[in-house]
C-alpha cells in the first residue's frame, strides 16, 4: 500500500472515530436531562398506563447502551424519532430546513472562496501599498465584529436605505432558483464578509512566504510579469495551506449560519435548533447537533486529507 493511501485511511478512521464519540456525547444529553423524560413530556397528570406506553414506544425500558445503538441505527437511516413538543416526525421537520441551510452555506462559499483568493493574491502582489493595508484593515474589522452587527449594517444599507434586497429571507419550496438567490443574497453576503477575512489573510501570507525563494527570483529574472509569477509559480506551491484554510472556513460557515439565519428569519436548521433549545425539545436538538457536528467533522477531515494530497512533503514528516 502506498504511504499516501495509508495516511489517508488513518485520517478517515480517526474522523469516523471522532464522529462516533461525538454521537455518544450527543446521545447522552437526553440521559442527563433532570427528571423523567416520560413524565416531563406527558405532564404530571399522566396515568401510569400512559407513562408505561410512552416508555414502551421509545424503548425507555432498555439499558442505555442498547438505546444508543437503536438511536444511532435509526439516525443513520434518517429517522430521528418524533418531536417532544408536537409529536411530528423530526426527519420531516428537518429535511427541507437542512436543505435550506446547506443552500445558504454553499451560496456564501461560492462567493467567498473566489473573492478571498483573488483579494489575497492582489494583496500579496501589491503588498505594503495602500491597497494591501486597506484590505487588511477591513478584513480585520470583519473578524472582530459580531455576526449580527455585520448583518444589521448590511440590512440598513441594502434593504432600508437603498431598498435593493429584502431584509427578511422567507423562502419556500415553490420559488425558483433566481428568486431564491435574490432573497438570500443579504444573509449570503453577511456570511461571506465573515469568512473572507481569514481565507484572504491566509492566501496572502502563504504566497508572501514563497516570494523570497530562489525559483520565484529566477522567474522574476527571466523577465516574467509579476502577476504571472504569483499565479503560475507561487500559487501552486501555496495550495496546501490555502486548501486547508478554505475547508476550515467552510466548516465555520456551517456554524456561522445559525446566527445569520436568526437575523434574517431564514427557515433553516439553525433557526430550528435555536427554537428547540428554548423549548427544550431534546430529540430535535440532538438531531440538529448531530447534523452540524457531522458536517463540521467531515469538512475538517477533508481539509486534512486535501492538504496532504496537495503537499507531498507532508508525507515525510521529519
Amino acid at each position, binding site marked *: 500500500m502506498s504511504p499516501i493511501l495509508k495516511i489517508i485511511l488513518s485520517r478517515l478512521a480517526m474522523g469516523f472515530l471522532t464522529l462516533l464519540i461525538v454521537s455518544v456525547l450527543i446521545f447522552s444529553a437526553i440521559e442527563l436531562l433532570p427528571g423523567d423524560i416520560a413524565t416531563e413530556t406527558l405532564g404530571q397528570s399522566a396515568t401510569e398506563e400512559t407513562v408505561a406506553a410512552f416508555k414502551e414506544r421509545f424503548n425507555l425500558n432498555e439499558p442505555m447502551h442498547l438505546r444508543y445503538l437503536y438511536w444511532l441505527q435509526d439516525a443513520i437511516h434518517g429517522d430521528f424519532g418524533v418531536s417532544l413538543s408536537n409529536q411530528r416526525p423530526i426527519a420531516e421537520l428537518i429535511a427541507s430546513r437542512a436543505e435550506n441551510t446547506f443552500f445558504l452555506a454553499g451560496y456564501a462559499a461560492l462567493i467567498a472562496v473566489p473573492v478571498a483568493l483573488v483579494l489575497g493574491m492582489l494583496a500579496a502582489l501589491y503588498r505594503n501599498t495602500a491597497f494591501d493595508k486597506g484590505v487588511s484593515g477591513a478584513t480585520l474589522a470583519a473578524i472582530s465584529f*459580531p455576526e*449580527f452587527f455585520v448583518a444589521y449594517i448590511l440590512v440598513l444599507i441594502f*434593504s432600508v*436605505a437603498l431598498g435593493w434586497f429584502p431584509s427578511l429571507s422567507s423562502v419556500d419550496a415553490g420559488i425558483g432558483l433566481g428568486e431564491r438567490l435574490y432573497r438570500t443574497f443579504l444573509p449570503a453576503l453577511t456570511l461571506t464578509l465573515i469568512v473572507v477575512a481569514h481565507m484572504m489573510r491566509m492566501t496572502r501570507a502563504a504566497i508572501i512566504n514563497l516570494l523570497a525563494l530562489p525559483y520565484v527570483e529566477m522567474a522574476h529574472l527571466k523577465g516574467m510579469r509579476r502577476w504571472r509569477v504569483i499565479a503560475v509559480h507561487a500559487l501552486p506551491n501555496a495550495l496546501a495551506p490555502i486548501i486547508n484554510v478554505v475547508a476550515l472556513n467552510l466548516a465555520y460557515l456551517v456554524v456561522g449560519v445559525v*446566527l445569520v439565519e*436568526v437575523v434574517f428569519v431564514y427557515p433553516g436548521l439553525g433557526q430550528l435548533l435555536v427554537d428547540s433549545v428554548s423549548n427544550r425539545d431534546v430529540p430535535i436538538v440532538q438531531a440538529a447537533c448531530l447534523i*452540524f457536528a457531522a458536517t463540521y467533522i467531515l469538512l475538517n477531515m477533508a481539509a486534512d486529507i486535501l492538504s496532504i494530497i496537495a503537499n507531498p512533503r507532508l508525507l515525510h514528516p521529519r
Partner: protein
Amino acid sequence: MSLVLTRFREAPLSAWIGIALVLLIGLAAIFAPLLAPFPETEVVGPQYSPWAAPYYLGTDALGRDVLSRMIYGARNTVGIALLTTVLAFLLGAAFGLLAATLGGWVDTVASRVVDVLMAVPSLIFALLVLTITGTSVVALILVIAVLDSTRVYRLSRAVAQGILTMDYVEVARMRGEGLFWIIRREVLPNAAAPLIAEFGLRFCFVFLFISALSFLGLGLQPPIADWGSMVRESAKLISFADFSTWQTATFGLAPLLPAGAIAILTVAVNLIVDWVLHLASGLEE
C-alpha cells in the same frame, strides 16, 4: 518600572486607541450606578422616545432608558465575560501546565478529551448543554468556561513543553525542586507573554460568544440589561429606519447601538493584543 513606562510611551497610536476605549468601557462598567441617569430595569418614560433630553439615547419598547441600559449592559456583559475568561484560563492553564510537566497518561487523557471537545463547534456544544441545564447565568458561565479552556489548554501545554526542554528546568529538576516549584518559578514567568496575549483573544471570543447566545435569547435573560439581548429586543426597529429626518433615523438605529458597542470593545481589545504580541516578539530577540 521605568521599562514599563518606556514601553507605554513608545506604544503605537492603535494601541493607545485600544487602551482608551477599554478604559472608557471599563469605567462605565465599574461606575454604572453613578453614571446612569436612570435605573437599569425600571420603566421611566413613554415608549420609543426620540433621542432628546432627558433620554439621550431614547427609550425602548417598554419605556426604559436606553443610555442607562447601555451603561448597565457594559457592567453585566463585560463582567460576566471577564469572569468566564478568568475561569477558562485557570482551568485550561492548570491542566495544560500539569499535562506538559507530568506527561504520560495524564497528558494523553487530557489531550484526547480536549480533542473531542474541539472536534465539535463550541456554539453547537453550548446549545446542546444549555438544552439540558436550561438558561441560567451559572450554566452559561460554566459551559463557556469549559469549552473555552480547551484552547487555553492547547496553548499553555505547547508553550510549557517548549520551556521544559530548557537547561534551567533540567538544572532545577536535578537540584531536586518539586513539581509545583518548577511550574511556578520556571515555567509560568517564561510563559507569561503568550498567555497574556491569549487572555485578550480569549476574552474577545468569550465576549462575542455570550453576546451571540444572548442575541439568540439563550444567554442572559431579561430584564437584565445586556448588549446582546438589547440587540435582540430592538432588532425589528431597523426596518423602520427612515433617513428623511434625524429623529426617525435614530429610531431605526436602536439595534446598532448595542451591536456597535460589542464591536468597538472587541476591536479595542484586539488592538491592545496586537501591541502586546508585538512587544513579546520584540523582547525575545
